[in-house]
């Protein structure tokens, strides 16, 4: 799994974009999206997912259950 952004809740404030250690977040059609190929759930970088911690609207950056859980490989953790 990786994180995803609930578009209907996103205020497009861009706070997550700057905090993401993987540069996985970008603006698309007025709101922000997370590239699941880049998202590591912040594992190996921080104790908490940065997008979740900085987002001003609760439950907007959430785990995308449709995707397999992120598996840290090698020295990332």
């Amino acid at each position, binding site marked *: 799994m990786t994180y995803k952004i609930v578009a209907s809740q996103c*205020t497009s404030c861009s*706070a997550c974009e700057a905090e993401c250690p993987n540069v996985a977040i970008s603006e698309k059609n007025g709101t922000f999206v997370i590239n699941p190929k880049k998202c590591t759930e912040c594992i190996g970088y*921080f104790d908490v997912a940065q997008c979740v*911690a*900085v987002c001003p609207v609760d439950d907007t950056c959430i785990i995308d259950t449709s995707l397999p859980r992120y598996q840290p490989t090698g020295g990332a953790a």
Partner: protein
Amino acid sequence: MDDSSNFEFAAAEPLDDIMQKIADHKGCGTSGGSGKSSCGTSDGPDDMAPEIWEKVKNHPCYSEEAHHHYARMHVAVAPACNIQCNYCNRKYDCANESRPGVVSEKLTPEQAAKKVLAVASTIPQMTVLGVAGPGDPLANPAKTFKTFELISQTAPDIKLCLSTNGLALPDHVDTIAKYNVDHVTITVNMVDPEVGAQIYPWIFWKNKRVTGIEAARILTERQMQGLEMLTERGILCKVNSVMIPGINDKHLVEVNRAVKSRGAFLHNIMPLISAPEHGTVFGLTGQRGPTAQELKALQDSCEGEMNMMRHCRQCRADAVGLLGEDRSAEFTTEKIMEMEVSYDLESRQAYQNAVEQERLAKVAAKNAELETLAAEEASDIKILVAVATKGQGRINEHFGHAKEFQVYELSSKGAKFVGHRRVDLYCQGGYGEEDSLETVIKAINDCAAVFVAKIGHCPKDELTAAGIEPIDQYAFEFIEQSAIAYFKDYLDRVKRGEIAHVARGDADIRQGAYISA
């Protein structure tokens, strides 16, 4: 605060001397060590150092007197925020913010620079560019400082300012100084973390979300440290505080002392804007804002400590124009990209020189009237009056067209600006014409009179019935001069027994941000 205090200081001197002084842009001239950190309240013989006068004389937010003449604009280049406040809701476009991408537009620094040039060319009295959000400018440092860099290259005469919650401030003070940002506003709602915990649910700090008292403790430490660092570098600081009855209303006196002792130039206590439809925590819990009298009482009690700002319109992060008006709809990105912009520094200067002449005339008129008031017997009577104005310090607005009224307190000491009342939200709840008059009366219910350029028979009668005297005899005259003349007449009439001086009731503070109709 009000740099007309310069002129009051000089009132005892011959007029020619005053004119010379102001013409030299020396303000009150002396830079003596008075008790206050700086000068600029609406009353009292304050000193102001010439370099400070230079900084505030055409900044509408830092000078009550300047706000009649000069305009400001905000560019919404800073959408991200690093703290959460219970009076703010990023999901909606409301009170102190504008939600990027919905009602207002988020701008890139390049778009912002173009917009500033377009506005400055159209509105020559636009002297100040601020980055105020809609998030926190210092949570978006790259965008904020890039904007300042571009504008200082193309429009070097425009003053730069920013407002911040202070959390990231100590990290950016050197950059702020580097870009010659000489006005910084910090929102300080508490200096006691226990109080802060009721206002701030969390902060984003060192890659973590910190909550509760710990969050408020970090925030207040950073704010005070940032304030000290700015004043050390001679950057003027204004402190904004949101008055939240039952939470920090009494505590703000302590905040006032704390920021004064750290060199803040001006304190702006604003009423909480709170309504359920804003979707803010305070809106949803039913937390009320203060009444006009509660706000004034708190401002009055802090005034002995330092300069108080009472002319704040709590404008949005994309506001354009004089305080109390918003012309942002004229300058949407689409429109400015089509505009042919030629930045003419010289004609802007010429216009601003004409404005200065008008200011001189206004001050001279006020001082002359003040002298005749001083000749009268001193009285304990104080009254409030409402004024319909479009700017330039004149009574030049039709009663029915007024979106707000400015409120002056009249006493034997003269006329002092003490606030403004909004009446532009007639549309709320779909009220008709009659109800809108009721709204106006509620908003200026504590005033003895209302000064207008023109007024119809109907509202005239209704105002009179409500005990508010409608005055149109000073149409297009200077506000303060007229108000003092009216007050002399008022005292006379009381003395002769023609009217009875009665204390007026409280008044409503209207909610919401200024937006163009």
